[in-house]
């Protein structure tokens, strides 16, 4: 590049930047809008009605003041990045979808059950919604649903949305499941949506046009199609920042970057007009600020409340602590690998030893002492969802029974009080390497378990790693993936609210050939594999639930998985805010019923 050309380029750049940098400086004060609700603050005694004035005979009686608008305020420690659900993967963006773009076909209630939303009913084989080969699902949509501007919401909106997601011109966050599982999406008529899959696809309820994570139901075709035609992409559509036309109990009103997002009641929502007038999301710098806002009464809903803060918040008397299933389970993962390189302690191959190790630990006491008894030991991995087998119970604390089981398995108490067994002519001690992260509560659990095991003659070596190292993959030489320990403790989850999980599949065992495998337990059970294979193609929800009950029973019978405790999401909610039914999948699904006691 010659010097002159170079200088010319740079000159342009400077001018451009100076202009753009200085332009807004001319108006340093953002345009002030009239107050959203010109109500007096409660702490202004001067505005009180004049009590000293004698009532004038002809004066009208006490003015029937306009009722104060009901505003639900929620402090968010993270600011959503994008209000187009297909462009954000943030939890704090996804939970808002139920307020202003609640177009999902189904939604999840507070029992983690899927219930119809824009779809009139849940398609089943019985009602003709699912084809015989399981590859075609037909959704009958409600015919009384309208966008907030009055335009009807139809099957065409869904087809358009699918086209937008799959278009190479749009850089959406995820195409899951439309690229891997869906063949085509068609509108038979205004209210009939037909989704054809490549193979029978069991997780459709939580995945197809859902509101659970990245993505949602339909986007407004009548707003976004002209943008796509004009710009060739909807990446930069104004609607993504200002979704003023939506579908839900509330309508987007304003987003002050870095400060707040405001939603106002939508009188035309198909479930009726919401009881509160406004939802105000206040962006706060961090979790500490969120807790401060809750304590000051400036926030009506707090998210991800940690156990350390709970007692303090409860003491105020103005807040309730509410938990919803999150899919996460604090688990004991035993190393059951049979590969000599990654194998754990040989005793763990015996189901009775595994059982004894669990029976020797008083998990209820751990939950009571370390987590203030706020949660409980789970019976199955799918605790709190319809997929949890209602007949299953957690193993009871029974140290005597544990001793008997260990004796019967040939692990007898040695001179030093630790059990041992002669395997292949060598004396093997029952000493287990128990690893977890550096989180304080887990370290405390380790110490308690070590004590309780000692009482039945089992020794434990306690190991802690920083979590990034602890959870590293096989390729990155993560210790769990390499099978370096006997028992690991951490929190893990299925594809919540879908129950599927790849953790126990034989083909997921990490190895040189499969360095990204997620079966760090090294477990390979053909019967279990067969059940998991069956559920992935069982499209009918009821039949699939039954299979998960069988899986849950098998995991318990063979002691492949053990709960330390159920690890739900915790919310703190104002006692003034009533009718709140937070759900794990779509937390704000019943926002239309929320009410604020004044």
């Amino acid at each position, binding site marked *: 590049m010659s010097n002159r050309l170079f200088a010319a380029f740079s000159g342009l750049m*400077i001018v451009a930047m100076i202009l753009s*940098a200085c332009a807004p400086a001319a108006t340093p004060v*953002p345009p*002030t809008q009239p107050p*959203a609700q010109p109500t007096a603050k409660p702490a202004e005694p001067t505005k009180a009605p004049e009590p000293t004035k004698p009532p004038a005979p002809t004066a009208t009686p006490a003015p029937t003041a306009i009722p104060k608008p009901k505003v639900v305020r929620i402090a968010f420690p993270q600011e959503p990045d*994008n209000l187009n659900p297909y462009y954000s993967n943030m939890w704090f963006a996804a939970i808002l979808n139920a307020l202003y773009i609640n177009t999902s076909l189904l939604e999840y209630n507070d029992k983690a059950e899927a219930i119809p939303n824009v779809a009139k009913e849940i398609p089943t084989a019985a009602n003709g919604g699912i084809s015989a080969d399981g590859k075609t699902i037909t959704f009958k949509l409600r015919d009384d649903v309208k966008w907030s501007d009055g335009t009807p919401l139809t099957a065409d909106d869904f087809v358009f949305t699918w086209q937008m997601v799959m278009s190479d011109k749009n850089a959406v966050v995820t*195409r899951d499941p439309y690229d891997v599982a869906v063949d085509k999406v068609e509108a038979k008529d205004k209210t009939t949506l037909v989704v054809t899959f490549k193979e029978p696809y069991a997780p459709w309820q939580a995945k197809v046009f859902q509101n659970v994570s990245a993505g949602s139901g339909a986007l407004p075709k009548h707003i976004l199609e002209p943008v796509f035609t004009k710009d060739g992409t909807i990446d930069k559509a104004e609607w993504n920042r200002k979704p003023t036309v939506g579908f839900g109990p509330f309508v987007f009103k304003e987003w002050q970057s*870095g400060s707040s997002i*405001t939603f106002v009641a939508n009188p035309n929502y198909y479930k009726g007009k919401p009881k509160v007038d406004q939802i105000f999301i206040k962006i*706060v710098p961090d979790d500490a600020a969120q807790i401060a806002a809750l304590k000051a009464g400036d926030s009506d809903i707090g998210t991800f409340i940690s156990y350390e803060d709970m007692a303090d918040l409860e003491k105020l008397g103005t807040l309730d602590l509410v938990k919803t299933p999150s899919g996460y389970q604090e688990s004991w993962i035993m190393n059951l690998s049979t590969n000599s390189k990654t194998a754990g302690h040989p005793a763990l191959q015996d189901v009775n030893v595994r059982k004894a190790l669990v029976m020797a630990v008083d998990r209820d006491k751990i939950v009571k002492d370390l987590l203030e008894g706020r949660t409980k030991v789970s019976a199955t991995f799918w605790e709190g969802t319809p997929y949890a087998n209602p007949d299953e119970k957690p193993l009871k604390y029974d140290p005597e029974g544990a001793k008997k089981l260990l004796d019967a398995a040939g692990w007898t108490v040695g001179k030093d009080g630790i059990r041992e067994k002669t395997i292949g002519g060598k004396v093997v001690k029952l000493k287990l390497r128990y690893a977890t992260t550096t989180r304080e509560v887990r370290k405390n659990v380790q110490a308690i378990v070590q004590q309780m095991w000692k009482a039945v003659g089992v020794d434990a070596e306690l190991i802690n790693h920083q979590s990034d190292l602890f959870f590293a993959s096989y390729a990155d030489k993560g210790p769990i993936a390499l099978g370096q320990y006997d028992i690991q403790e951490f929190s893990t989850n299925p594809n919540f609210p879908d129950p599927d999980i790849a953790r126990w599949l034989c083909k997921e065992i990490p190895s040189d050939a499969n360095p990204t495998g997620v079966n760090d337990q090294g477990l390979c059970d053909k019967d279990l594999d067969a059940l998991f294979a069956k559920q992935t193609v069982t499209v009918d929800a009821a039949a699939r639930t039954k299979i998960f009950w069988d899986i849950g029973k098998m995991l318990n019978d063979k002691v492949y998985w053990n709960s330390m405790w159920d690890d739900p999401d915790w919310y703190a909610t104002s006692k003034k805010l009533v009718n709140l039914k937070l759900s794990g999948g779509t937390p704000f699904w019943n926002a239309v019923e929320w009410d604020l006691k004044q």
Partner: protein
Amino acid sequence: MGRYIIRRLLQAMPLLFIISVIIFVLTTQMGDPLSMFGGGRRALRSEDRIRLTRQLGLDKPLYMQYVIWLAGNDWMPIDADADGKQDVDENGKLVYGTRKGALRGDFGTSFATRQPVMDMIKERLPNTLLLMLTAEVVIIISSLVIGLVSALKQYSVFDHTVTALSFIGFSMPIPLLALGLIYIFAVYFKRWGLPYLPTGGMYDPQVGQSWQQTLWHMVLPVTALSVITVAGYSRFIRGSMLEVISQDYIRTAKAKGLADRRIVFIHALKNAALPIVTIIGLDLPFLLAGAVVTESIFAWPGMGRLFYDHTTRSDFPVLMGIMMIISVAVVVFQLITDLTYTFLDPRIRYD
């Protein structure tokens, strides 16, 4: 003078070019923006990762990414579907990119929000300028007053007190100061039933946005921003004033019987101001950057928080935009500082 300005501006161009290359290399190596797309609980699937890498242009070699950042891609055919062939539209014409490049004022779009970086900055810059300019005015006025008084009344009680206080102030970390102010004036004052100040934000949502609200919300952050800087500046002013008033020409002026005020403000201060102007000139461009810590603690929606939020997401188009604006501002304010010298000291000439 005109020629001098032009020469300085021309010199700045290669400098800014080198700065932009260095910042670009550093920010792009800072982290993986795609790993932050899993802001939810699920990591990005590998299918989406590959597609987004391509769609966001992260698959291109670094020098190409820089060229596109600098000069845009509306002059080159693109391949959005990655089939190895350049895309054509329905009429068989080649499809070109849409980015204009930084040279034409397009800093690209944020990975996180998909908004043009310039729009994001325009949204936040007024807030930052409002806060920082107010703080700067407070800083300059109070440090001038404090510095002058303690220089003219050297070793008085006032001087000793201010000296002690400024050492405390100067060594105070800003987070401690900010949180302390919140604790006293917002939390405790509220508890004691006194009129209290808000903890953060630009206005009370229950009241709505108005200039009174904004002013009320500015009190604490401006105080937090000012205290430390005032402590430093007032020491500078005191020092250079002391140096000047012991000079012969001040004694001469006094001997000639000039009024004290005239001596202090015209003869002494103007000459003592040179080092102070240098420091203020160096500080001014960083006003645009906002104050990361202060803005975070007081939830002030300015540039500092924008920078922080997008640093954690490795959103380098936004970081590049902010840092280039600061770089340009540094160059411009340096020039302005140098020009101020000619006014303050007629012996300095640039032609």
